[in-house]
């Protein structure tokens, strides 16, 4: 059910994504994440179209960390920040982080090769039902995504995901 991808740029690092529905303890999880007690990025999946977005965000976060140029305080917050089309940190948390009443959740974990223990340790704290990452699109809210990234119809003709991915990658020069 998990989706794990090796990073070509950082062969020691892996990114695993876990998707949950019917989550009952979003508020508690959020508090734990804020206090740094969960070593994962907790993301609101309605703002994402594909696991590829989270992969890109994680890759960029590890890159920024490796050259000492993170914009936020931790790797996990940097992942959330990288998803956002703007450079406003609190805005990024509001849109892409988990909030109290959320029922769905995407957990993104950066870990080394064999870390199944870490993963199950995190998964066990979510009071909800894990679903295959393939079901990603059933959580997405394209209307909200279109609005947040300000994607025009002419740009969307080339595909909404491509438009979003390009915004994420180019936001620091626009």
């Amino acid at each position, binding site marked *: 059910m998990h989706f794990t*991808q090796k*990073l*070509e*740029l*950082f062969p020691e690092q892996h990114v695993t994504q876990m998707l949950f529905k019917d989550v009952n303890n979003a508020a508690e999880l959020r508090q734990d994440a804020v206090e740094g007690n969960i070593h994962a990025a907790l993301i609101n999946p309605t703002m994402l179209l594909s696991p*590829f977005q989270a*992969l*890109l965000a994680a*890759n*960029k976060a590890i*890159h920024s960390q*490796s*050259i000492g140029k993170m914009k936020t305080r931790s790797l996990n917050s940097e992942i959330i920040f990288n998803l956002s089309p703007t450079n406003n940190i609190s805005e990024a948390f509001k849109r892409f982080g988990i909030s109290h009443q959320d029922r769905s959740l995407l957990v993104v974990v950066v870990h080394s090769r064999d870390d199944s223990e870490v993963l199950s340790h995190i998964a066990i704290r979510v009071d909800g039902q894990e679903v295959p990452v393939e079901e990603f699109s059933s959580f997405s809210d394209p209307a909200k995504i279109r609005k947040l990234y300000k994607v*025009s119809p*002419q*740009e969307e*003709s*080339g595909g909404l995901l*491509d*438009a979003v*991915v*390009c*915004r994420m*990658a*180019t936001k620091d*020069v*626009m």
Partner: protein
Amino acid sequence: MATLQLLRGAEMLKQGAEGRVYRAEFLGKPAVIKQRFPKRYRHPELDEKLTHRRTMQEVRSIARCRRAGISTPVVYFVDYSCSCIFLEEIVDSQTVRDFIASARRSSSRSDQELQRLAELTGRILAKMHDEDVIHGDLTTSNMLLRRSADSSELELVLIDFGLSYISALAEDKGVDLYVLEKAFLSTHPNTEPLFQQLLGSYSASSKKSSAVIKKLEEVRLRGRKRSMVG
């Protein structure tokens, strides 16, 4: 340096004066990586500034084109520390150069196909110039054709924005077209009518085209450089 390490194992597609182009898998997708390498003949500090700025300009132009609905490769990731841009690989495509060459060889394929291409190219370039993006290196090798997914219509994809910049000046747009004209007519001899068709489509598509075409005529008489200095 993670990126440079990756490039060491990647397949090199091209080497130019400004950089190298590689092909590699990136986050599970086929990608093209453009690297601008340091020039040892320049002062290191100056070199770093120039290289960094050109990388930024390239990324910016691509983003601007995409916003306007012009097809270009998607930017996946930029590593400014080594001036590397990770781009979507445009698969199942053919350069406009090859397309024209093979269309002219086969008599079965009608002129109509070439005319449609000239019309499409003019329209896309007009749109790009209306966004004030100057490509800087327009050639038929820097334009790709692919069949779009939902129809059999040809889609034009502009690539290699390495020399591009943002400018609203008719002069810069005129020179952009002049560079294309030179490249087009020398790569494809005896295609003057086809290029005229391209320009016709450009003029019809852009509101600001008359000033640009006027500049193009000026540039034809004097060449690409405005001043004779340097």
